[in-house]
């Protein structure tokens, strides 16, 4: 610790260079932490999927629907246990009340949460992770306006069983002419976090029949959730489903729930690979920049290092000082990067509009995990050590007389 003031003074020797180096490292760690947090959140989403569940959607895009008649044809296929028709409702709170159809400007985008119209019985049967008390389940099936919400959602809005609320969809075909849909909380689902760590409890599910009838019975199917008996046969069954509708007007694309969720979140390609690739490239580039900076810093101070050794500093101590200086720069940069990453995530998840967009792709709870922050700091320390080691080794090996001779 007694060398710390000495190191800090050195950092101020060329404050502009030090600042740029710190900023370079902080940018690197900022990117690392932010990208890793996005990946971690995506992985949480993907971990909550089951290999036995398939999702069939329109092959063109998820925004195009499918004929309802596909349900029975998929159900009749060998290996299929059950099928549930679903529609992404896209409802927002608090919406207009019944009879106030003319006022559509009160839609509140700030409290968006995922809501899905499903065939309740087969859909919930596919999701054993959703724990619903039997009496609530029966009440849910008995009330067409009934909905089941996750515990987190219930806690967020303070909703209890029997509470009512209104939602109106931003999708025109999901609106009814006489105003928004009214829902009654009939069931609240819980999830065992130890058994199903990635499963969200901020969803709302309600009967697709309610939506179908409310919108004039013109609604087609958004997606089909398909449960297969044997997870190992999910691939061939998915191919068989798509083959079944290959010559129809609405061709399908069937994939595992995990792949569907991943593509829904990422929208394109292998996001994890892309994000990790960016992270590695940035880290390596910054490593070169910092190593170069440290080399210059040490070269500039050859004589000074010679003086330190003359005064009695051992080569190891001098090497330690150089590495410590590099580590100090890296640590400051790392902490700044972590703080920046935390700040941007807070901003994203608390800014109306952005927050809702993130919620739409299941990233509403993105945050800087302690493990990611520690890893970020670890990367910074590694950068500092790697960048400082070679110049420090040069200082270690250099002979005093050669160093003092430096002009």
């Amino acid at each position, binding site marked *: 610790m*007694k*060398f710390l*003031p*000495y190191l800090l*003074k*050195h950092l*101020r*020797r060329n404050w502009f260079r030090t600042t740029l180096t710190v900023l370079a490292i902080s940018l690197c760690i900022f990117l690392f932490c932010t990208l890793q947090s996005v990946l971690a959140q995506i992985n949480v989403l993907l971990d909550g999927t089951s290999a036995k569940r398939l999702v069939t959607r329109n092959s063109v895009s998820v925004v195009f629907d499918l004929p309802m008649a596909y349900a029975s044809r998929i159900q009749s296929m060998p290996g299929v246990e059950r099928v549930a028709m679903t529609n992404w409702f896209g409802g927002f709170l608090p919406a207009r009340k019944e009879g106030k159809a003319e006022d559509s400007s009160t839609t509140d985008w700030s409290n968006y949460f995922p809501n899905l119209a499903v065939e309740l019985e087969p859909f919930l049967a596919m999701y054993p992770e959703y724990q619903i008390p039997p009496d609530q389940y029966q009440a849910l099936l008995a009330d067409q306006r009934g909905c089941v919400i996750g515990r987190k959602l219930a806690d967020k809005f303070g909703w209890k069983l029997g509470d009512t609320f209104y939602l109106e969809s931003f999708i025109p075909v999901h609106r009814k002419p006489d105003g928004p849909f009214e829902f009654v909380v009939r069931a609240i689902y819980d999830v065992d976090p130890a058994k199903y760590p990635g499963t969200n409890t901020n969803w709302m599910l309600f009967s697709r029949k309610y939506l179908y009838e409310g919108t004039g019975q013109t609604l087609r199917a958004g997606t089909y959730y398909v449960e297969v008996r044997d997870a190992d046969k999910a691939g061939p069954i998915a191919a068989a489903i798509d083959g079944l509708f290959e010559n129809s007007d609405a061709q399908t694309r069937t994939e595992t729930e995990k792949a569907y969720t991943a593509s829904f979140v990422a929208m394109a390609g292998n996001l994890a690979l892309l994000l990790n690739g960016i992270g590695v490239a940035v880290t390596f580039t910054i490593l070169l920049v910092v190593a170069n900076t440290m080399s210059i810093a040490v070269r500039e101070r050859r*004589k*000074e290092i010679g*003086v*330190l*050794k*003359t*005064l*009695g*500093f*051992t*080569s*190891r*101590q001098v090497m330690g000082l150089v590495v410590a200086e590099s580590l100090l720069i890296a640590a400051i940069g790392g902490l700044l990067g972590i703080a920046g990453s935390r700040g941007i995530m807070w901003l994203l998840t608390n800014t109306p509009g952005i927050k809702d967009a993130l919620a739409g792709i299941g990233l509403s709870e993105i945050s800087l995990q302690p493990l990611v922050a520690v890893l970020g700091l670890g990367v910074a320390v590694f950068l500092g050590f790697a960048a400082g080691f070679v110049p420090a080794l040069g200082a270690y090996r250099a*002979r*005093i*007389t050669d160093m*003092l001779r430096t002009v």
Partner: protein
Amino acid sequence: MAMVDVRNVTKVYRRDAEELVVLNGLSLQVQEGDYAALMGPSGSGKSTLLNLIAGIDKPTSGDVVVAGTNVAQLGETELASFRSHNVGFIFQFYNLIPVLNATENVELPLLLTHLSKAERRSRALTALKVVGLADRATHYPRQLSGGQEQRVAIARAIVTDPKVLVADEPTGDLDAKSAHEILDLMGALNKDFGKTIVIVTHDPRAAERARTQHHLEKGVLRD
């Protein structure tokens, strides 16, 4: 007893296949409390000899015994420890650390001791007082004149109370007045504090201040 005892020392530098004999079987004694000047033309080996005495270089053969320790036989770490305890080095170009103020520069060798921060600061200020720069304690090297910088460097050299002070052309970069002051100061350190001093110089006026003078030529003494 000799404070510095150089016995039959040879120093050879090798550059590629070429061998350059800088010191050739040289022997020299400097008694405790002596003030010795090493003189000679450029390339005569006087700075090399000074480096050997200071323990910042090792002889190719022979022994260099300083304060009872044969520095030729010490490893790198022991040699560093030897320097910090026994030798104060004064450079021609002062070699102060530009980002540290006078007190911090003087305090630098004390970082290697177990002294507390307050003790280190106290000793550094005392050393600055000895060299007459107590009022410049918080000044940075760029705020000091050449003579003042050299005085700070001398304070840094004496702050650990070393047995031997070695100076490599300490007045070589100073004007006559400042050089005179520095030589007065070194004389006082020798006379009043009993420091053994070995100085390398081209300047006859500096050499005159020393009690003994040794002339080197082509790596051997011509006394």
